């Protein structure tokens, strides 16, 4: 039986985390790292890598279903809004219907806001049919 909600995961996106994510992905775009540069862009300040917040969604899925059920999973998301330095991000989701599909989201909680920054769906592959069930159906 699939759960109705994903296990939520929280993460503090501080400057050190953004820097570490730049190092692991080798994405040193100054909009993530240089406050002076970022202030002059339409974003008006430093924003975190979108994939950093998406990582938290993977953490939520793995915490809910375990690594074995990650096989065959399909994830489709849109980046809706930027995550700012010092935001807390929370990832989770809800089962969409009786299928294996979940509506997933990442929310940013800042000093003066709480808003969805990533939204999409995660679809699990059907679990393998055990030999016992297969035999009883044949």
């Amino acid at each position, binding site marked *: 039986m699939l759960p109705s909600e994903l296990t939520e995961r929280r993460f503090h996106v501080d400057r050190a985390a953004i820097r570490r*994510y730049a190092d*692991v992905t*080798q994405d040193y775009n100054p909009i993530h790292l240089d406050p002076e540069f970022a202030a002059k862009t339409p974003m008006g300040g430093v924003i975190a890598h979108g994939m950093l917040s*998406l990582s938290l969604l*993977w953490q939520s*899925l793995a915490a809910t279903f375990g690594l074995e059920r*990650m096989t065959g999973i399909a994830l489709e*998301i849109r980046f809706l809004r930027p995550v700012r330095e010092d935001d807390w991000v929370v990832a989770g989701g809800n089962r969409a219907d009786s299928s294996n599909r979940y509506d997933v989201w990442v929310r940013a909680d800042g000093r003066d806001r709480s808003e969805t920054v990533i939204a999409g769906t995660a679809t699990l592959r059907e679990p393998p049919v055990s030999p016992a069930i297969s035999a009883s159906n044949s």
Partner: protein
Amino acid sequence: MKTFDVLQAGSLLGEHRFVFDEAALGEWTTLFPEDAGCPVMPPAMLAMVVMRAFISIMRDRPPGNVHAGQQFELLRLPVLNERLVTRLRCQSKDLRNGRRWVTFNSETSDDGGELRFSGVMTTLWAA
């Protein structure tokens, strides 16, 4: 410079190799310590593999691109010391309302050629 005009839908842009080993996992767990000791590649590390490939292959991209959306399909999580190769293609490009939409397709396989995971990155291309 890989501008919108230069990119060709369907073209292979390049490939990038990555080894999922203790060193890579160690880098990752500086960010997410809870993934330490994971018997396979933590699922969130897909982004590390794909973004390293994208950054390396598209190093002469115009500045200011926006990552608007992402799809992933995970077929099997790599095991420790598995060698991976990611091939990046320009899947499509489309000019809509003055905005340059470019999608990139990534396919990451083991060194035997078996697909491990794939992705589609949707971007607003800056120039």
